[in-house]
């Protein structure tokens, strides 16, 4: 026999002087790390993923979770992770699964971009005293407006008046350029979905339903949801399409470009099965391509079909993963009837992705925004279509930089989950989430209080919104459209010429 276990990643320790044997940890840990053995709590560190549920819940602060000090021989090429993966795969013969976004130490360009502020020559604007406008419209816009002059009789006098001839297609009206990303019911619990929907409504923004249909409990918030059509078409029918404020066709996802999705049967509860319209307990597998989209014209047809199905009343977005050729693909989308292009960067999160995809496929969102925005301008269509960026947006500065690089708005996913309690332990695909977020087990789902969750998510979006207003004011701008694509207000630090050129920004000092 070849021993094939690897040392645990974390080491869980209980301070027996502090522990009062309340067994809270035993109940709270859904991973089975703890067991009461007479007058002692026994730990199984190999089951721990550092989700910190136990640490957060222990009334005596008796638990510490450390990195396991058991060392591997250091090697720059054969890292611990590499060796662990080989040991695991040679044991199972399987694709490695992983959760959350890219975990490699690849550059995060946001951190190498700095912002501008006013000094003397143009005054900064105080958002506490002056209006600061973040309202954003997502959808198709005309290239120009046309007016006609109609004669009206007012008090016996004939007066001509300019009337607007151009009719603008329906747009989504956002009070803040931050939307909640598509995370499906099924991958996430109903309580998470309810909390996000309530928060979206409160903040005047929208949440994506993901590819899991819309649970009837979300119907009251449906006009703040964006429904999704992905390759599995789960939960899709006319009623679903008509309920949402917009429809998004998902071609690809930043964390796993080029492949479909997989919701393990363990997570397909009765309610999930009804919402998705699939048998209970069966795996929900979305194919890699849409089987009715094998070319850009097929996509254009689907966009049109969806518009016809919804009487041209509902905007249709198309989401693609940020890949090498993202700019050309986005241009193809922009010239269809689609109202917005969604680009998802390689650091985007996911419930379950093959590790090899998560860590190796796709390009950074910062470069993708810059490339798409520039290309659409070259083609003269940028003002007619919206760009939504997503994938690894962590704070208000990332939002601000995304918009200055050329996005209209952003989607945030992982950040919203963290607001709900997620500690980014990356085991969403197991369905064991101890925080009640990425699970369907009723006893775990019940841990997430909907009202409190909604409040947390709304707080996060409001806090970022306030910060964006302050940053705008400091930049001397009082409406968000003057930031959009305003790369003059960005500078790079520590980036080489090629990177600066790709981002379309100057280096600090110039």
């Amino acid at each position, binding site marked *: 026999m070849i021993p094939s276990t690897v040392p645990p990643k974390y080491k869980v320790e209980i301070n027996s002087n502090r522990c009062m044997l309340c067994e809270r940890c035993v109940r709270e840990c859904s991973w089975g790390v703890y067991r009461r053995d007479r007058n002692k709590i026994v730990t199984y560190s190999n089951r721990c993923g550092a989700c910190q549920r136990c640490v957060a819940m222990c009334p005596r602060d008796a638990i510490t979770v450390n990195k396991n000090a058991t060392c591997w021989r250091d090697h720059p090429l054969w890292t611990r992770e590499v060796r662990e993966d080989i040991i695991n795969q040679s044991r199972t013969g399987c694709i490695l699964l992983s959760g959350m976004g890219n975990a490699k130490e690849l550059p995060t360009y946001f951190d190498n971009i700095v912002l501008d502020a006013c000094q003397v020559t143009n005054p900064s604007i105080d958002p506490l005293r002056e209006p600061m406008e973040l309202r954003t419209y997502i959808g198709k816009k005309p290239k120009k407006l046309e007016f006609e002059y109609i004669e009206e009789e007012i008090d016996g006098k004939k007066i001509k008046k300019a009337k607007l001839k151009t009719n603008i297609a329906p747009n989504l009206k956002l009070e803040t350029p931050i939307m909640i990303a598509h995370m499906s019911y099924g991958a996430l619990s109903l309580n998470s979905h309810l909390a996000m929907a309530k928060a979206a409504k409160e903040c005047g923004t929208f949440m994506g339903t993901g590819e899991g249909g819309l649970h009837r409990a979300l119907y009251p918030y449906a006009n703040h949801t964006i429904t999704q059509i992905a390759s599995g078409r789960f939960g899709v029918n006319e009623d679903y399409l008509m309920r949402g404020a917009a429809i998004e066709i998902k071609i690809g996802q930043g964390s796993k470009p080029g492949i479909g999705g997989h919701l393990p049967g363990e997570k397909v509860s009765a309610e999930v099965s009804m919402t998705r319209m699939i048998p209970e307990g069966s795996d929900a597998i979305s194919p890699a391509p849409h089987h009715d989209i094998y070319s850009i014209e097929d996509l254009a047809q689907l966009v049109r079909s969806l518009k016809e199905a919804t009487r041209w009343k509902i905007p249709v977005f198309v989401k693609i993963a940020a890949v090498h050729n993202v700019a050309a693909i986005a241009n193809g989308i922009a010239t269809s009837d689609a109202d917005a292009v969604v680009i998802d960067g390689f650091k985007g999160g996911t419930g379950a992705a093959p590790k090899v995809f998560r860590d190796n496929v796709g390009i950074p969102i910062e470069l993708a925004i810059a490339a798409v925005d520039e290309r659409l301008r070259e083609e003269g269509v940028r003002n007619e279509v919206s760009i939504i960026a997503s994938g690894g947006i962590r704070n208000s500065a990332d939002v601000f930089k995304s918009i200055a690089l050329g996005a209209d708005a952003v989607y945030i996913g992982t950040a919203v989950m963290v607001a709900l309690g997620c500690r980014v332990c990356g085991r969403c695909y197991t369905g064991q989430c101890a925080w009640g977020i990425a699970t369907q087990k009723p006893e775990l789902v019940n841990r997430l209080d909907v009202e409190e969750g909604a409040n947390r998510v709304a707080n996060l979006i409001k806090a970022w919104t306030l910060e964006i207003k302050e940053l705008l004011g400091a930049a001397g701008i*009082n409406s968000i459209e003057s930031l*959009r694509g305003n790369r003059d207000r960005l500078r790079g630090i520590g980036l080489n010429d090629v990177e600066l050129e790709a981002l379309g920004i100057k280096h600090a000092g110039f």
Partner: protein
Amino acid sequence: MCGIIGFISKKKRPISGDKIAIALDSLKERGNGQGSGYVGYGIYPKYKDSYALHVFLNNTPDYYEIISKVKDTLEKYGKVIKDEEIPTNGEILKKEFIPWRFFYDFHSSYRDIENDLMVNMVMEINDKIDGAFVFSSGKNLGVFKASGWPMEVAEFYKLDQYKGYMWLAHARYPTNTKGWWGGAHPFNILNWSVVHNGEITSYGTNKRYVESFGYKCRMLTDTEVVAYIFDLLIRKHKLPVEYALSAIAPKFWKEIDLMEEDERKIYESIRMTYGGAVLNGPFAIIVGTHEGMVFMNGDVEKNNTMIGITDRIKLRPLVVAEKDDLVFVSSEEAAIRRICPELDKVEMPDAGMPVIVKMEK
């Protein structure tokens, strides 16, 4: 900080250019001597139907070659009727550039598209011909600008020898790009001329917006983009001028939300469609306009007009005054009183509210 002033005679009375220079001189506190400039409308009555191009040529021994390159470009579509050096007094300023002027007519077959062709030619010359820089391209008008104090520039160009019915002027205190002749105001394209006090903080957005419509920003300063936005919105897109100005200095959403449905729809559509044209940041501008502007009531203005407008929270001053047929717009009342001590009326327009002065009919 910069000083701006403009005046117009609603009766189209010709007024000598030294008047505006005297007024501008009193605003020199607002400049630092690194750029002053003037534009006079109606100054070339003899060639009033021809385009008058003012071009800076690099002051090098081979400047004649540059002239012939410019001529080659122009003569693709028409004929240069006359070209000559703009008379200057070389004792006042060092001639960093040779200012040259061309009077030019398009072939009649291009009559319908001559304005668009002229914009393209200006872009092409400024972009492709080394050592040539078109800074004025309208009919019966001319820009005169250089690095220097207001009086120096006026005397350098012998402004007292020109008579115009509208004059705009600017004393510059450069803050975002270094002072050079081309960077002085007014900025002009066709019959649009802009003088500007402030800073276009949204420049990065505006520049990329107009560039997607084929304009090229080559003057390294933010004000030229204002001229292109006026040209795009009012001449090319034919927006009613009041609405075009509200795209440039937009109404706040909280005002728009309270409007009647029809009106709300219009202002919402303007902001949705023309977000890239919003001028954000502190500004007060005076614009000499192209002819053919359409108003909300369907009137078409055949003449050139003068427009003054500030940003929507009025971070730069603007004052309007009237005396008989004369209307003045300026950064400061003092500059107006310097050339017209007795005024009938003096007003400060509200933030973002345009002042439009038309000819008497």
